[in-house]
């Protein structure tokens, strides 16, 4: 089975994240880039499916040069090879452009199963897997907390508000996984060394037959009109519990008419 796992490099949540004042895009230089946490669950799930069913795991990422760190991390976990879609024309792409560029690349490299994390910690749109399924014309089995693959078939448990749906489809398909579907492995020393020798293919937009008019800032379907730092929340009263903390909290709730 040919599994492609899409990963994204995101600014580290622990550092201050900013937008650039010039073009209002994410300032990728201001913060350390790390693999999006939910993508680690996607990589782990891909590796487990490969271990159970055979096949190959390809990492696909779209991002600037420094996203190679994220590719290496996924390869160190155990993925077999990678494709890095990198081109200055892609800078500023929105979710629609990104899904278009990734779909074009996926058509080129081929797949039986595409796995994504359910969302990224920076943009948090949660739309990419659904958009990819739409663009590729294959079944969408998203928000999975359990995945089973049989001969040409796939079944997942899709997390819902009321519990979960069991969803079935035939391959090829696009799936996304939620946090805690598995326990992502730490790369071993051996894995880290081996990752350095694994093949990483670089694609520009021409290689994936991506129309430059449909990507990047100019191609985006939406724009940031303006932005500003959120005004700090006015610091409220803080009291020390002296045996009456609960009563004081109740007084506050009463004053705000919650009680």
């Amino acid at each position, binding site marked *: 089975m040919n599994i492609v796992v899409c990963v994204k490099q995101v600014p580290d949540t622990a550092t201050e994240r900013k937008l650039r004042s010039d073009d209002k895009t994410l300032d990728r230089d201001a913060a350390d880039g790390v693999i999006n946490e939910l993508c680690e669950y996607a990589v782990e799930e891909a590796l487990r499916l490969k271990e159970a069913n055979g096949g190959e795991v390809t990492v696909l990422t779209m991002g600037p040069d420094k996203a190679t760190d994220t590719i290496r991390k996924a390869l160190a976990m155990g993925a077999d090879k990678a494709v890095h879609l990198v081109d200055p024309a892609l800078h500023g792409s929105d979710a629609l452009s990104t899904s278009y560029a990734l779909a074009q690349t996926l058509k080129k490299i081929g797949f039986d199963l595409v796995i994504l994390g359910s969302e990224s910690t920076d943009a948090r749109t949660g739309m990419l897997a659904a*958009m990819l*399924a739409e663009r590729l014309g*294959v079944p969408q089995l998203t928000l999975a907390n359990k995945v089973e693959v049989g001969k040409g078939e796939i079944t997942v448990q899709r997390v819902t508000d009321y519990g979960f*749906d069991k969803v079935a489809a035939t391959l090829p398909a696009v799936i996304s996984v939620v946090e805690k579907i598995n326990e992502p492995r730490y790369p071993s020393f051996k894995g880290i060394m081996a990752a350095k020798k694994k093949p990483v293919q670089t694609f520009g937009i021409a290689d994936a037959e991506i129309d430059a008019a449909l990507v990047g800032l100019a191609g985006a379907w939406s724009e940031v*009109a303006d932005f500003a730092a*959120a005004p700090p929340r006015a610091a409220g009263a803080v009291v020390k519990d002296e045996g009456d903390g609960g009563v004081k*909290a109740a007084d*506050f709730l009463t004053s705000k008419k919650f009680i």
Partner: protein
Amino acid sequence: MAEILVLVEQIDGDVKKVTLELLTLARTLGEPSAVWAGPGYSDTAKARLAEFGAAKVYVADSADIADYVVAPKAELLASLVAAKSPAAVLLAATAEGKEVAGRLAVKTDSGVITDAVGVGEGFVADQSIFGGGINVHSRVTKGTPIIAVRPNSTAPVAEAGAAVEEKVEVALSDAARGARVVERVKQEKGARPELTEAAIVVSGGRGVGSGENFAIIEKLADSLGAAVGASRAATDAGWYPHAFQVGQTGKTVSPQLYIAAGISGAIQHRAGMQTSKTIVVINKDPEAPIFEIADFGVVGDLHQVVPQLTEEIAKRK
């Protein structure tokens, strides 16, 4: 007036609160038309949509629409966008609502904005990003604006609408029938409101100390008619199910009142609750960063403070 499509969210035929919020918001932008997708439509549902100002209700209630994941709803909306040329489409920024929005955007070659906390003139959306650190105004620049709005962003206000019904038949494509729902499993969650919809959320974190101790969080929640949430530390420890995790990799909530007990307030948690209107914090560590965003804080042991608060609420009711 400009027609605004609002995708109805419902469970077993009951219209969810977020839909009433979207209808209220849509009335400030144009004339709302509710879109019912899937089985369960009834006079009760119609009355509810009319009460909150739906001028029209497009009803596509064939079972097919709910039997396949997401794609049929996007196909239904795309056919309505083509037939009715609405000024915009509003959906709930729930996990599924955002997926429908994404597919609809691809189908209609339109821009899409997610997690809006407000929508103003010209369909300019307000967003709060990076854990609430930055406020952004965004707008769609191509096609029909598709905007997924975060639950609890608008207070629902009733205003009668005609709710003129129009049946819609959709011939689903093969592609929309790709992922079939073979079974729906409903997990018992009692009488508490749904986490993302709740007006009040009471969350517990590392300070709660154990799964059993979450009972005191639940009791406080029940005294306020609130939903229960948990920090990542609590779900990682297995004290509370992941479905209730509030934060960057869990649910995003924006209630009227958020009570955080025993939660330090790492950015990963704040990203999921910072747009709450009022925040009350109970934590024994006065240095916990969560106090920085508290409207009211108690420095103390939650095991004493929370039960006392619960008791006090019962007395005052």
